[in-house]
């Protein structure tokens, strides 16, 4: 596609429910990142996918968080048993670069509100 596409743009859920967020990167981009941004805060790294390599999951805050990516296409971030502190904007970004980090292209984000 023309840009990174994320869905849903907004999600309101009740505490304890599971949510799934989707990211469709720019076609041909091998690298895909998920970041979390709480209101008024910076970008917190969650997970990084690079081609068919094992993902870097070092930023996932708990085992309630997981992400998958099939090849170099769509990625889904799943949050199980959501908590109020999970409320944030979840940003996905993709990039073409391999060894040398290149420019990240961000999606518009998925705003999650946990009641």
């Amino acid at each position: 596609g023309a840009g990174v596409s994320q869905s849903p743009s907004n999600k309101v859920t009740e505490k304890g429910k599971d949510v799934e967020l989707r990211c469709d990167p720019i076609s041909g981009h091998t690298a895909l990142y998920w970041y979390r941004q709480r209101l008024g805060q910076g970008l917190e790294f969650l997970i990084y996918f690079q081609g068919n390599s094992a993902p870097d999951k070092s930023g996932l805050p708990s085992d309630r968080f997981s992400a998958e990516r099939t090849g170099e296409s769509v990625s889904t971030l799943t949050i199980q048993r959501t908590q109020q502190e999970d409320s944030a904007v979840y940003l996905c970004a993709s990039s073409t670069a391999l060894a040398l980090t290149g420019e990240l292209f961000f999606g518009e984000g998925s705003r999650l509100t946990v009641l």
Partner: protein
Amino acid sequence: GQQVMQIPQYQHVQEGEDFTTYCNSSTTLSNIQWYKQRPGGHPVFLIQLVKSGEVKKQKRLTFQFGEAKKNSSLHITATQTTDVGTYFCAVKLNSGYSTLTFGKGTMLLVSP
């Protein structure tokens, strides 16, 4: 652990005044990127610096990479209301590791 510090956290200027944000690391960086995030928007790439002492300009924006490749700055000359937003630096902290770590950002407010 390794991290990148960005200062100031917030700055409010009058239109026409200059603005500078700084990004500092305790370790040598391979490169550094700068992004701008408008209120309610997503981060947008501005520039990447790679060489020691590198200086790059984009209209009223001047980006510098320190000689030791441990710090960087973004300077805006004669700010305009369109410059409002949060400016983030982003670095790759570990050699051969592509995860980008973002600074906490500097929020710039420009009053007309």
